[in-house]
């Protein structure tokens, strides 16, 4: 006959002994390991913009606003297209009316305050369009300056914003050299392009890549040597925006020009 005391002692030892392997099953849950998705070490998202192919239609901007629920009539956008016209006298004229949401409907350059610059076709030396979006930098200054850590970088390289944690101080907006961040007009927190994270983590492409009819925008995985985007970056002459800031941007451009800011 076992005494009550010994029974209790054995029971406690047994429960403690069992709890370790049971807990281990929790820590090393196979479901959680498989569900790591695109954040597994193996994906580093990278973007390629081909400015030779962009015609300034603005369909990418429309698609982005629709997909990511940025109010259509609000004057902020997660991505935009800039138009550059370099005249023969060496001057640069550039504009981005409503971020090219409606395309470029006039050949007159929008100078703001209701002024427009009319440029004769004969005076144009070169002209091109430059789409821009968040560069998901490898050394993101916006993550560095956030006082509460509401903006952070995933292992796959995308910089995200926690809408429930952001205090709306605007330091990240001031800290971005590329001007991709803004305050969301409805949620009143910081917002920016996140490479349509809800799509790419499911194997889809970003809204702007899908929408571009000319293939000027492409997204890929920098860690996969067989990825078509990676192959172009490794073999062609590519460039990034404002490398002097030390941000290590991961949006590469084909057809960069000295006049592009």
């Amino acid at each position: 006959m076992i005494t009550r005391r010994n029974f209790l002692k054995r029971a406690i030892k047994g429960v403690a002994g069992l709890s370790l392997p049971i807990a281990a099953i929790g820590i090393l849950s196979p479901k959680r390991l498989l569900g790591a998705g695109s954040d597994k070490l193996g994906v580093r998202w990278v973007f390629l913009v081909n400015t030779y192919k962009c015609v300034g239609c603005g369909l990418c901007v429309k698609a982005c606003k629709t997909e990511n629920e940025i109010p259509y009539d609000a004057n902020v956008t997660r991505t935009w297209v800039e138009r550059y016209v370099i005249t023969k006298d060496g001057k640069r004229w550039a504009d981005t009316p409503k971020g090219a949401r409606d395309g470029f409907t006039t050949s007159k350059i929008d100078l703001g305050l209701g002024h427009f610059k009319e440029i004769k076709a004969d005076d144009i030396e070169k002209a091109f369009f430059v789409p821009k979006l968040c560069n998901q930098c490898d050394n993101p200054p916006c993550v560095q300056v956030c006082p509460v850590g509401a903006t952070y970088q995933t292992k796959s390289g995308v910089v995200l914003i926690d809408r429930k944690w952001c205090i709306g101080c605007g330091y990240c907006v001031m800290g971005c050299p590329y001007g991709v961040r803004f305050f969301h007009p409805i949620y009143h927190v910081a917002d920016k392009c996140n490479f349509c994270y809800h799509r790419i983590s499911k194997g889809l492409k970003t809204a702007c890549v899908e929408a571009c009819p000319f293939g000027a925008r492409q997204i890929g995985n920098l860690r996969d040597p067989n990825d078509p985007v990676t192959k172009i970056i490794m073999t062609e002459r590519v460039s990034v925006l404002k490398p002097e800031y030390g941000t290590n941007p991961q949006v590469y451009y084909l057809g960069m020009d000295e006049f592009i800011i």
Partner: protein
Amino acid sequence: MLVHGEIWTIKELFVTPNEYIYWSLQIVMYPFMTGLVAGAFVLSSLYHVFGIKQLKEIARFSLVFSFALLFVAPMPLLLHLQQPQRNILVLMTPHFTSAIAAFGIVFMTYAAIVASELWFVYRKYFVETVALLRGKPEKTFAERIRYRIFSALTLGAYDVSHEALQKDEKAVKGLATLGIPVACFLHGYAGFIFGSVKANALWMTPLMPVIFIMSAVVSGVALCMLTYIVVMEIRKIHASSVVGRYVETRDQIKGAELNEIRMTSKYLLFFLIFAISLELLDLIFRGYTALKNWDILRSVIYGRDFVNIFILQYGLGNLVPFILLVLPRLTIRRAVVCLVLILFGVFMMRWNVVIGGQAFSLTFAGYMDYRMPIIPHDFETFKEGLFGALLVALTPFFLFWILDKIFPVFAVKKSD
């Protein structure tokens, strides 16, 4: 649908779509207020640490004023935040790579130091007041409240022997010494917030924290001197109209006032020269090295903002007070003009840094004009407009009036 900043930003030429003046009037007010905090504390420490006896009166005054200003310092931040109810996150879960995260630690440390120093300075007064009130058998309601508050404030330390008071003085000296670098840090980190933003061509300079600290001391000293003069003038009026009620005569007040002001203005002059030298150094350096951003910066500094920078800030805010202070036989009237101009100059410096830094686009090929909201038509144009700034500017005086009831700044009234 207007986005934040759109209503007071006018864009010109080539500006990217998301650029607006996000850091507007309240972000100008915040370094202005913390600068006053730091400056007032440094003035008080000139007496407590360096023993400059002639500054004793103004030292007590500026310590209490620094405490009043301290409570006002977070106001501009709370008015600026898009999610002010989450402000506690900066204190509870700070992200330490951010300069703003330093706010929590520095602010709390500084508050603790000033509160402790005030306690040691006023402990004898608390004990004496409690003893006086305890002796009264019939206390009025107000006196009972006063008795309760002051008993609590003594924290049970009733020993006012010579040795105990010596220890108090030692503690004050220690705290004042420790407080100077902390006060400098409180404002220096604000300068670092701007100076470390590599994305902003105007803000990016290692000189920024030092420039901010120097002009902070200037503004703090100037404000304390100005408020001191105003209070002294009020006391003079009382002394001449109700003879015998106050311990000093009008002439006594006048003499002490002029002495304190003349002494303090010498220190003010020193810091003024230091502050303007650093700013001119930064400007000359930028022009000499002529980096890529110099073209747009030059067009903002020498063109669009010329009046704001050279006429208002450097001219009215620095040169005119400099001349007025250097001229011999400083009078109270001349001092008041100087001090008002200096405070205006320091405010314009904050304005020219914050607003000026957002006057040009990241493209270096466009401009943004700031139209300060004057008549508010919604909560946002109130918060970040003239009335929001006035609220922040006037609250310290109201708080100072309340604090003076617990930490009286001048010689106590003769009992009735």
